[in-house]
């Protein structure tokens, strides 16, 4: 490029993009652009940068200003890009729709896409297992999406599955961040990675250089002075910061120095486990937990308050009955009868231990006798999605006086109500005879999909309170107004995971209420269990380590 100086040229290009350029300057830069393709390229690059800065400013504009410098929120960058792309697609489809409203077939299928934005979740990896893990900061549960930004494992071992298919076992005191499905930065600690073929090129960045996989299994041990790389299988490429790239094969170890070189390793390979070995260890631990849980179940069974207790595991293929294991209560529910639901894998990994209720009509029928001063219900469920307005957990046939309804709303709130008898409402203004519903906060999000969770609800007459629980923790607690308190709950014929129409049809639009998911344990108690008891039930029944 010749003529004017580069800085001046860039200033002119910037004023072109601003629209503030003077006529004389326009002529000068136009002349350069006309004769010099490099100047045009500079213009395009500058324009791209402008568009990206605008996008960046728009993304950050949604946050509270000032954003700068303080605590840049570590939102997943790639998700932002994806969100941007989705927005662009939605914009295009909207344009198409409005530009061609009468054009037959002009994307009828496209319009709903634009109308209902896709649900998204944020992250590049999930936590697929942990063993004695202690996290610095908030604990992370199995199956959780790992947040972006720096993560700190204080001790123990964890396994991470990146969406690229890469599996990593991290152990001991480790600091790291997951930058993308294809890149992890290790600041400190030991990682053992297993990289499947589709994820070749996966990179671990360290302060002394990068390790790029070429189809392998390898471990990286990062400390303040450098990083030891040990290749277990296949080969990896090392990119020291100060010297040339080199490739090392299975059985070879090298140390990346912060000085920028790669040298012979003096230490032996750390005692790491591969993701496969780690899973085997976890499975053994899970078996142990299963046997502890099985043994502790007789406490639930023999509890005088337990009216119905159905661990769904039958051990038999095609079983259509669910035995009620409760035996301590004077009032016991019937055994359950399985309708349409098919057998599925339970939370312990046993193939016939759960029931899948996603088929329309699926349910377990039961009968619960007597009157109850308050109730508690808990269940372990795995939901695929909440795809109906009401998604049933436990509903009585119809919704008669004193009967409880427990279901999940499409918007992610758990719904619980006990119908207040009309007689108690006599003399009231009809507009006030609305049935009380005790909602939990919205707890559903896409990241819960396909994961086993424990839900519980208590209707406590003594304290006039309804509480919802998720995984043993109370998530809401609402007082029951005096006028709404039902001191004697009745159930009678009822269904787990579906609803049976009443004889009269008052609300026919809600007929489909079966749950799109599986359940493997359900219990109903007379009276309200304490929050501690619920937490204990969760701890004993949780197949995974916290």
């Amino acid at each position, binding site marked *: 490029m010749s003529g004017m100086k580069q800085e001046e040229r860039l200033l002119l290009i910037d004023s072109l993009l601003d629209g503030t350029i003077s006529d004389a300057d326009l002529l000068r830069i136009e002349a350069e652009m006309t004769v010099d393709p490099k100047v045009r390229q500079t213009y395009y690059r500058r324009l791209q940068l402008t568009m990206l800065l605008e996008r960046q400013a728009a993304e*950050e504009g949604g946050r509270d200003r000032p954003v700068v410098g303080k605590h840049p929120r570590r939102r997943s960058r790639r998700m932002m890009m994806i969100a941007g792309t989705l927005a662009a697609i939605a914009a295009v489809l909207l344009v198409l729709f409005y530009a061609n409203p009468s054009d037959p077939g002009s994307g009828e299928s496209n319009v709903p896409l634009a109308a209902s934005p896709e649900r998204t979740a944020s992250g590049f990896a999930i936590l697929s297992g942990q063993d004695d893990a202690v996290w610095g900061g908030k604990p992370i549960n199995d199956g959780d999406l790992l947040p972006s930004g720096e993560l700190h494992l204080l001790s123990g071992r964890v396994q991470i599955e990146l969406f690229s298919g890469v599996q990593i076992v991290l152990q001991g005191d480790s600091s790291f961040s997951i930058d993308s499905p294809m890149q992890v930065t290790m600041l400190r600690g030991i990682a053992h990675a297993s990289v499947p073929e589709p994820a070749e090129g996966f990179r671990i960045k360290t302060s002394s250089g990068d390790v790029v996989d070429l189809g392998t299994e390898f471990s990286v041990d990062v400390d303040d002075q450098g990083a030891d790389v040990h290749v277990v299988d296949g080969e990896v490429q090392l990119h020291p910061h100060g010297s040339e790239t080199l490739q090392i094969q299975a059985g070879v170890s090298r140390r990346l120095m912060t000085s920028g070189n790669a040298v012979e390793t003096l230490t032996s390979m750390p005692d790491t486990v591969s993701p496969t070995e780690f899973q085997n260890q976890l499975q053994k631990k899970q078996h142990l937990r299963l046997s502890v849980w099985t043994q502790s179940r007789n406490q639930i069974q023999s509890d005088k308050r337990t009216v119905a207790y159905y661990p769904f595991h039958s051990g038999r293929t095609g079983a259509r009955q669910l035995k009620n294991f409760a035996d301590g209560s004077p009032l016991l529910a019937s055994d359950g009868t399985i309708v349409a639901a098919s057998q599925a894998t339970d939370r312990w990994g046993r193939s016939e231990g759960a029931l899948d209720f996603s088929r329309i009509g699926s349910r377990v029928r039961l009968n619960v006798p007597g009157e109850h001063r308050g109730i508690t219900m808990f269940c372990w469920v795995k939901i695929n999605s909440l795809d109906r307005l009401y998604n049933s957990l436990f509903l009585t046939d119809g919704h008669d006086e004193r009967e409880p309804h427990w279901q999940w709303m499409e918007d992610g709130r758990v719904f619980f109500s006990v119908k207040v008898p009309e007689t108690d409402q006599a003399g009231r203004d009809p507009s006030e005879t609305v049935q009380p519903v005790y909602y939990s906060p919205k707890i559903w999000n896409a990241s819960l999909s396909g994961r086993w969770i424990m839900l519980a609800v208590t209707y406590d007459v003594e304290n006039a309170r309804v509480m919802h629980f998720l995984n043993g923790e109370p998530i809401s607690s609402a007082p029951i107004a005096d006028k709404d308190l039902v001191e004697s709950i009745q159930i009678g014929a009822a269904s787990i995971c579906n609803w049976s129409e009443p004889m009269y049809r008052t609300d026919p639009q809600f007929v489909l209420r079966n749950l799109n998911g599986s359940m493997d344990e359900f219990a109903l108690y007379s009276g309200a269990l304490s929050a501690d008891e619920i937490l204990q039930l969760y701890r004993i029944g949780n197949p995974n380590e916290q």
Partner: protein
Amino acid sequence: MEPKNPTDGETRSIHEADFVALLTSGQNAITLTVRALMLGDRGMEEVVQQTNAKLWQKRDDFQPGTNFRAWAAAVARFEVLNYRKQQARDARLRFSDDLEHQIACEVGELEDDLYDRHAALQECLKQLKPESRDLLLSRYNGEETIADLASRIGRSVGGIKVSLSRLRTGLSQCIERRLSTGESVE
């Protein structure tokens, strides 16, 4: 998604779903073309939308297997001209016809790597001093003119322009550096 050259000269009409995919992936090229020609004109969003609508109308003219982005850029250029005509004004700021044609051709051929560039930009932004970053993003955040910005922070318009330009240049160099080191290891 760079289309291959057609194996035969036959004109086939494209499936709508495929066309939507092309249109979606071509958005950056379309926006880039419109903006490259409109020189700060605020009507550019409208023109981008018009271009999308026109591309959809003319979808049967598109020959599958040819370069969609080049075609879209050419259509975008005509929509820019059309916009000027509709606005019944000759834009004060515009390039010569020859240069406009040249730009529309070249923008359609540009490497579509905005995704990588954005990722690189975000890394590079982290290296800026907080006040520099704030100044830069303020420029793109909302409707504030440079004059407003200058009076708000008590600096001259010329001074801010130079600062902004240098910041952009620094970011560009950082982005190119990141992209080139990224490429060398792929």
